[in-house]
């Protein structure tokens, strides 16, 4: 594909992202759920324990970003299959990677925007961002990584949204508990660390601790590198698997 055609497809991916945001994301319950669900899950852990806002914020930010960026993206493909809008989209002059990229970009934008809310609240409550550029870069990589993971959940060619959401919940909840959110990596035993390293959320939470607490466990470049690697692997896998299953959706 030449440069002009590539640029054209990227523009069309943005069109698909805009469509997703308008149809699936800009709904009151979706926005509220994106904030409230991680908040209550986090409070169930934090209430009654004497934890400072500096300690809580990196974990909470990681959870919000993780849950929002994976909230809707797994449901888009099954919903479009069920509502029979996918075939129309596939007959338009866009490639399958363009459709996937559009879905990822919508989820990415949603994750970033919603995650800024607790960050702003944290700033209002007195937290400091010691490395804003690194945090910004980390949020971008993590949002992209989690959005691609969300797309991976929906590769099964089903029109049943609840099946996909159940599958994604089965993965998402254990990931939250192994990712150093409630207990920082430094305090985990070796076997706990070994498990934590398989989760991409671990690296964002650790990076957030560097930026908001100056107390990360891994070097910053390792956290950023791991997020980039996970993002690339999830995106490539999502593309390959959707390429296989997409024709079975119509």
């Amino acid at each position, binding site marked *: 594909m030449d440069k002009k055609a590539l640029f054209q497809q990227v523009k069309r991916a943005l*069109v698909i992202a805009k469509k997703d945001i308008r*149809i699936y994301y800009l709904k009151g319950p979706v926005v509220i759920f994106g904030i409230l669900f991680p908040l209550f899950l986090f409070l169930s852990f934090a209430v009654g324990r004497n934890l400072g806002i500096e300690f809580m914020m990196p974990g909470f930010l990681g959870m919000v970003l993780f849950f929002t960026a994976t909230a809707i993206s797994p449901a888009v493909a099954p919903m479009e299959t069920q509502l029979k*809008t996918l075939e*129309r989209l596939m*007959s338009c*002059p*866009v490639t399958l990677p363009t459709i996937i990229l559009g879905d990822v970009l919508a989820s990415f934008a949603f994750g970033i925007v919603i995650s800024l809310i607790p960050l702003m609240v944290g700033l209002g409550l007195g937290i400091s961002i010691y490395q804003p550029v690194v945090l910004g870069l980390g949020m971008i990589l993590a949002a992209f990584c989690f959005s691609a993971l969300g797309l991976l959940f929906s590769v099964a060619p089903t029109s049943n949204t609840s099946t996909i959401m159940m599958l994604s919940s089965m993965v998402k909840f254990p990931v939250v508990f192994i990712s150093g959110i409630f207990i920082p990596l430094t305090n985990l035993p070796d076997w706990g660390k070994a498990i934590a390293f398989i989760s991409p959320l671990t690296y964002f939470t650790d990076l957030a601790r560097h930026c908001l607490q100056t107390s990360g466990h891994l070097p910053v470049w390792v956290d950023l590198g791991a997020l980039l690697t996970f993002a690339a692997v999830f995106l490539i896998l999502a593309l390959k698997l959707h390429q296989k299953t997409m024709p079975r959706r119509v």
Partner: protein
Amino acid sequence: MLKPRPAANNAIEVTNLTKYYNGNIAVDGISFAVTKGSFFGFLGPNGAGKTTTVRMLTGVIQPNKGKALLSGLPAGSIEAKQISGVVPEMANPYIDISAWHNLMLMAELYGMPGNMAKERAGYWLHEMGLFPRKDNLVKEYSKGMKQRLILCMALLPDPQILFLDEPTSGLDVQSSRLIKDILRSLNAKGKTIFLTTHDMDEANQLCDYVAIINKGSLVAVDAPEKLKATTDSRHSVEVSFGNPIELDSLEKLAGVREVKKQGDKYRLYTNNSGQLAISLAKYSESNGLTLVSLNTLIPSLEDAFVALTDKEETDNG
């Protein structure tokens, strides 16, 4: 007859196109060509392979074998999709946004400039009688309105080739007639139209050429009138009497091959409908019957379709 001859004048060229699903053949090496500006009907019973063929031509699925070209461009390529408009069989517009937003989405996906998109969207919404409700959410539309909107979406980028998969299926008479009128006028302006349908009347009224597909294989490609002519044995006379009669007595008339009761009428198949009409008039008179109606019928496209698909079933044992 079925082999396409590569030509610059072909809008669609299909060669040995084949598709399997789970080891079962859905489309079995079909080949045909559609000349630019023609109205081409693709007929077949349910499950014959019509929709699978359209999906391969529009790039929604990939064939296992063979190739298809749209104006010389590989089917499924971005360039081929750019010159095609599609009305899929089972597709819907996005129901949670307005008709206008659906059209603007299509315009952006086809890379149309904003002003041109708005102008064409307004034009087609007017033509389809949807303009007054352009800002309503599509979920408030009736089935006919949704189908008209889908046609608007397909026509917005001014495609050279228009694919329509059962576009009038299940629609009310007004919507169906409006869509057919628009398709006729588009064809008159030079657009190539590829229409799949199992409505023989529709194909007969609209198409210059029809292809008949059955169980994944093409059984005929020709002009509707020529296909009808291949089924001479389906000439018939339709008769209705004012009094009850025995079916057997009609079967005994000279030249009658088969008699079918259809409501209050009888349809008698023959090779010589004129002679049979005279025989029926005499039969009526000699038996003291009241003749309510008597019509000689030439084979319809439906007759040709039934004869061709039945013949294939018989040939295949």
